[in-house]
């Protein structure tokens, strides 16, 4: 294992100390491992809290700021945050209009956020809604599993729900935007290499040089199947076709197309992939209205990518285009 770390057990707090140093506009509580926007709580605004295991940077702390999240809770690497953290974050961003928890659909995340919501309900009058993101079409037979995982759509949902909250929409309205984005988003990912959890010290799974893993999640958990390495054009088809097969993306106001890097893939390959993805979409009669290309939801140093599509409408397009000022997403300001 070659990593820029001091000690495996200290990776998360030491990275948070770096975020604090780099972004004085954020409040970083290294003890609670909570990152809060500097001006929180914003009076009268719905607070958005997300969180999850670390190792997916810039998600979630990199999305804290005006127009997106009010707070992010960082768990250990690939381990959900604990309820105390979520309670601390919820309290810190409660501006009197309620708080929305944005939770990726993983067993641990769902349970810890549920316990936190129970604690908040018992301790204060803060109104809390939760939206569970589950956009990963790689999970089949979701009745017999923990259900579809929350992957790329999380980033897009946090942006659009964040814009809705910034406009002053009430908790019900912000929740509705979040649920709409989740309902209209589908994703599929692929890994070229494994990743190494610092505390484990060795790759989570073995992937031979000539194979890739299709349908991966974001924690080094294996995917749907292993196939021989293929050209990008074929990979684009492997990722886009199951997405299009799951939801009708034709017509309407087009899609937001997101090609996300898993952490170990350079931007040059992501743009190459994006061109291939657009090619597959054109052939399928899908119009691209907006795009996002980059590594926004990573799996440590895993090489590979995911493709997320969201079926947009006027409202979502305006929310996507609205100003955002966070460490990782920043436009219009």
């Amino acid at each position, binding site marked *: 294992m070659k990593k820029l770390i001091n000690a495996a057990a200290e990776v998360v707090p030491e990275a948070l100390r770096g975020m604090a140093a780099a972004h004085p506009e954020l409040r970083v509580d290294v003890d609670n491992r909570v990152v809060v926007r500097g001006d929180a709580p914003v009076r009268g605004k719905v607070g958005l809290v997300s969180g999850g295991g670390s190792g997916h940077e810039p998600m979630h702390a990199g999305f804290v700021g005006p127009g997106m999240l009010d707070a992010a809770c960082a768990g250990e690497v690939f381990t959900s945050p604990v309820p105390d953290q979520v309670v601390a974050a919820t309290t810190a961003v409660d501006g009197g209009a309620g708080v929305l928890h944005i939770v990726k659909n993983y*067993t641990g995340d769902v349970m810890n956020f549920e316990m936190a919501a129970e604690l908040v309900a018992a301790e204060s009058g803060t109104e809390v809604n939760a939206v569970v993101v589950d956009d990963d079409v790689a999970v089949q*037979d979701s009745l017999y599993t923990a259900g579809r995982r929350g992957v790329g759509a999380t980033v897009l949902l946090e942006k659009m729900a964040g814009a809705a909250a910034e406009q002053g929409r009430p908790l019900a309205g912000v929740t509705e935007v979040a649920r709409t984005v989740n309902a209209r988003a589908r994703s599929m990912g692929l890994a070229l290499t494994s990743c190494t959890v610092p505390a484990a010290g060795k790759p989570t799974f073995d992937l031979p040089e000539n194979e890739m893993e299709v349908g991966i999640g974001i924690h080094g958990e294996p995917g749907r199947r292993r196939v021989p390495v293929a050209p990008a054009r074929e990979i684009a088809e492997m990722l886009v076709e199951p997405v299009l097969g799951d939801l009708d993306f034709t017509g309407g106001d087009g899609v937001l197309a997101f090609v996300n890097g898993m952490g170990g893939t350079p931007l040059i390959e992501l743009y190459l992939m994006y061109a291939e993805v657009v090619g597959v979409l054109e052939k399928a009669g899908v119009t691209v209205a907006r795009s996002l290309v980059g590594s926004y939801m990573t799996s440590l140093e895993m090489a590979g990518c995911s493709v997320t599509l969201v079926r947009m409408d006027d409202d979502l397009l305006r929310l996507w285009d609205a100003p955002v000022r966070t460490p990782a997403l920043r436009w219009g300001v």
Partner: protein
Amino acid sequence: MAQELGIPEFEGWIRAFAAAVAEHRDELTTLDSAIGDADHGTNMDRGMAAVVAALDGGPPADGAALFKLVGATLVSKVGGASGPLYGTFFLRLAGAGGSGPWDAGTVAKALRAGVEGVVARGKAEPGDKTMLDALLPACDALEAALAAGQPLADALGAAATAAVEGRDATKPLQARKGRASYLGERSIGHVDPGATSAALLVEAAATALVPAQG
């Protein structure tokens, strides 16, 4: 005369479990890397080390307080699914066991309540390839042995055997809960890490929840 358990035995159980988790930390993580996300050993070890540190600060007043401390510490320190599940187990155990000394019947009642807490929190069923596949057979065996008139030590021994058998029986199962479920058929052929740590918990109970003689 009824044999009763108190703080020394309870503390012995928790410390024995912590030692077993520490000893098997890498094994738990290796099992988890096969069908999960390679953190079960490190997470449980971090949580149980925090529990031991809390106990070192001074023994709680009674069994209920002790197990509440264990549960709350695990919920705060472990994260993942294991934190809420083991945390809920001990919190429910504390509630059902109460603050008085425990006899064999209390042990069975408290364990059952703890396991029901795990069911409520995780919504898993027997055969889903989870920690319940070790815990449920252990509870059943404990209750059956006590009903047959066996002393607590023997009944807990039967529970430990059932937990270990339940753990091993997860190997051919296809996971339907947790991250392992995403693997579908590829989860078959691996022992479940949660059932493995749960078996350690019951084995620790069998060695430590033995009433003092005399």
